[in-house]
């Protein structure tokens, strides 16, 4: 009796162990590989939702935020990164990560359009998902009928105190604008001299797009140098609810810079996670992934107002034609200069 009871107990324990092992094995088999996507792109959650619904092998998890804090998070994680994918505006961060050997290159050739090909890195180390223009001159046509259309024109006395821009230390997309300025004027020093001259002509510096555009709304300035998606969002808003005395329009002084949005894969993840990340990138650049750009409401999600980088993608209905003249800067050249240029901006332009 006692032995029987002992045997029963052993049998019960054994079956429980086998059941647990079996269940965990089943669970392990069924559990999808999880990949964290650090993103600062407004339509990324829609892409994640569509990707996760399209297959069951991988599960992309959203970690949304602003570009600056997300890059700080990645830097703080140091040699023990927790991100599998990173997606944000700009490509200097991606180029820096590539230079440090932190990225897993794409294992496929995206069907880039001619614009996409010009923006994409030659070594295919990260994907270009679209691009925006840095900067657009958003001006109030009701009070400034003839805005400056060239860089030298912005220095004319008739525009004194009428132009505003963002601070590159706070507004991420503003550094590509400054780097582009330096690129088209021929050197870093020429760009700095131009900004000093602009400051002498009464340049107003606000933190980022929102405050610069508000300064335009209230008449503090007559033209704000902002990201084109912010400018387009403002125009959409005022077309829906027109306001007398305020007629926002866009001009591109000089040759504005096309700023790509980059999607990169952490090269230090496991093979399974990298495979999942590759699948996600492929999905974002696929017809289904690109369709989200056109179908998303741009009035509450301005990131879809980008220029697509993939052949055959229909842009959002609010996206205008590309500027007639634009430039693309090399992130591997201009990226490493950012800290020095930003510090110079603080000391010479932002400070009184």
């Amino acid at each position: 009796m006692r032995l029987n009871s002992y045997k029963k107990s052993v049998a019960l324990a054994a079956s429980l162990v086998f059941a647990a092992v079996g269940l965990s094995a089943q669970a392990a088999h069924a559990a999808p590989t999880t990949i964290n996507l650090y993103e600062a792109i407004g339509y990324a959650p829609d892409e994640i939702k569509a990707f996760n619904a399209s297959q069951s092998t991988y599960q992309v998890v959203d970690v949304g935020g602003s570009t600056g804090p997300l890059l700080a998070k990645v830097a703080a994680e140091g040699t023990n990164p927790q991100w599998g994918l990173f997606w944000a505006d700009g490509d200097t961060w991606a180029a820096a990560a590539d230079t440090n050997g932190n990225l897993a290159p794409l294992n496929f050739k995206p069907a880039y359009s001619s614009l996409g090909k010009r923006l994409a890195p030659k070594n295919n180390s990260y994907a270009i998902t679209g691009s925006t223009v840095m900067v657009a001159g958003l001006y109030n046509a009701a009070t400034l009928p003839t805005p400056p259309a060239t860089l030298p024109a912005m220095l004319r006395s008739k525009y004194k105190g009428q132009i505003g821009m963002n601070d590159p230390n706070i507004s991420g997309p503003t550094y590509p604008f400054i780097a582009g300025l330096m690129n088209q004027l021929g050197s870093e020093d020429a760009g700095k001299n131009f900004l000093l001259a602009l400051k002498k002509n009464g340049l107003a510096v606000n933190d980022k797009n929102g405050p610069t555009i508000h300064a335009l709304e209230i008449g503090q300035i007559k033209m704000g140098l902002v990201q084109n998606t912010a400018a387009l969002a403002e125009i959409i808003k005022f077309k829906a609810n027109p306001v007398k005395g305020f007629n926002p329009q866009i001009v591109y002084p000089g040759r504005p810079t096309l700023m790509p949005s980059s999607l990169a894969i952490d090269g230090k993840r496991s093979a399974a996670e990298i495979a999942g990340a590759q699948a996600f990138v492929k999905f974002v650049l696929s017809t289904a992934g690109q369709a989200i750009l056109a179908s998303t409401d741009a009035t509450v999600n301005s990131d879809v107002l980008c220029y697509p980088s993939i052949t055959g993608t229909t842009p959002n209905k609010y996206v205008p034609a590309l500027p007639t003249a634009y430039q693309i800067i090399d992130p591997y050249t201009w990226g490493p200069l950012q800290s020095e240029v930003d510090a110079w901006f603080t000391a010479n332009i932002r400070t009184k």
Partner: protein
Amino acid sequence: MALDGGLIVRDRVPFSKEPSPYTRLIHRVRITPMAVFWTLITFILVIPILLFLSVAFSPRLMSQGHQWFTLSSFKPVFSGAYGIALLHSLIIGIIAAVGAMIVALSMAWLVLRTNSPARILWNTTIFALFLAPSYLIALGWQRLFEQRGVLEIMGFSVTPIRNLLYGPVGICMVLMVKGIPFAYLVIANAMRGLGEEFEQAVRVHGGNRFAAFKVMASLLMPSLFSAMAIVFAEAISDFGVASTLSSVGHFSVATYQLYQGINSIPVNFPVSAATSITLLALVILAILAQNRALRGRSFRTLSGRTRPVTIAKLSFLGKFGSSTYIVVLLLITLGIPVFGAISASMLQGLGSLLSHYTINFSNYSRVLHSRFLRNPLIYSTEMSLITATLAVGLAAIASKVLTSARNTRSKKFVDFFLLAAVALPGIVFAIGYIFTYNLKFINDLGLHIYGTSFLLALAYTANALPSTSRSLVGNMGQIQESMMDAARVHGSAAARAWVDVTMPLIARPLLIAWLLTFSGTLLELPVSELLYPPGSPPVAVGIELSLAGFDYGGGTAIEVLSILWALVVVGIAFFLFNRFAPPGWKRLGNQR
């Protein structure tokens, strides 16, 4: 029976074996509340802060550079421009702290010690004031005074005021206004524990009302300094207000350098850490000032015999004057952020009442279905409930340490790290957490707490602990320890004595500290943004993401709805306390 050494031993008592050194060690280690407290303080405050600061000297320690030891991170800090920025931060901190303390003290006296008719308005709105984010306060001021703003449209010439607002005066004022609700809660808590006997003694000896007020203010010193210390630390760690209000003519503050390091590509943590060390030097100055003012004095006025206070009956003129003061202060502290919120979330048009505007709730009805509202708000509420409970428990112990009669090392240690946690901007604090809890060897030990709700709750608790502790310091400093001693002499265990003796005296301040923490955590952004578990964004991150997508109306609407939700929770908590708490718990602050 046996003879043993000449003694008759009736029953041989078996000797237990000599305990091994290991067993002795086990027996010596007792899990006491203080042991738990010090362990938690070490892991949630001390280590994250120290690891972040260490990067200034040793970037390689946290994989932030190649050097094991360098002082090059301090190069920007020793520039003349940074010295001026640091001086600006110090001055702003002092003005905001002293200003907030004076206004809060006067308001506490009017509300708790007089029959001013408008005092009920203040009491019912105090938590709304506390919840008003500095973003809405600054926005409200801007909308009023900006070019073609509301006041200009109404025909007022506000150019001189505007010039003042967009600069150091405006920054000090907004930070002071932001600090008033906290200072009021701290001072009012302490004033409730101050019986009338001291003021009566002054009056009996021929002192006038002012002399009595001075004595009362002296007895409130610990709470006054507590309030000032937190407002000072909050002000020197500010970046958003200073940056917003100095956009026209840049007014530099120390945190600008710190954020420059964090926002650069590649991120430059060593420079940010060096900047943080200078901010902590300012904190040490604040602690030294506090210790000098409070040294060698006793403020233990709260006992079982504390007398209910008599309300001062104001004359008609007094009632009119005090009510005007309260209403004007409410208009400034609450009216302006409410205006900011309306202007940003309900105004269709330019958002500045320029012309052709309509006011409606379309943003509110739209965001009710937003993915940034429902689940994030539920998650933030759960985290805030946990944080508030944990933080109040720890704060009760921390405030006891802080009010210890002796100026011990442990007191100085806790004081410094609590203020340091406030003086360091939230983003720095969160980075310290990533440094600490994402270390590979910690993961190898099987501890994977980075990216979990558990770590977020710990970080929230550490973030809230300074203000929660300081809100209790005034009351804890008033409690006469002889009451606890008496309870222990009569056989009560320590925990039981605390519940029976101390708890009734500080029940209301504990409730207020709990609500303070709950409200402060619900909309906390920097720590949330860096530490939230993947896939579970708190509501503050949702608001940030809405604003980042240029949906200013939607983002502000979510913010306003979250504030209203927090006020509902505050209301429920007060209702439950008034309805169910034992009568003895509600006695403190009774009036005659």
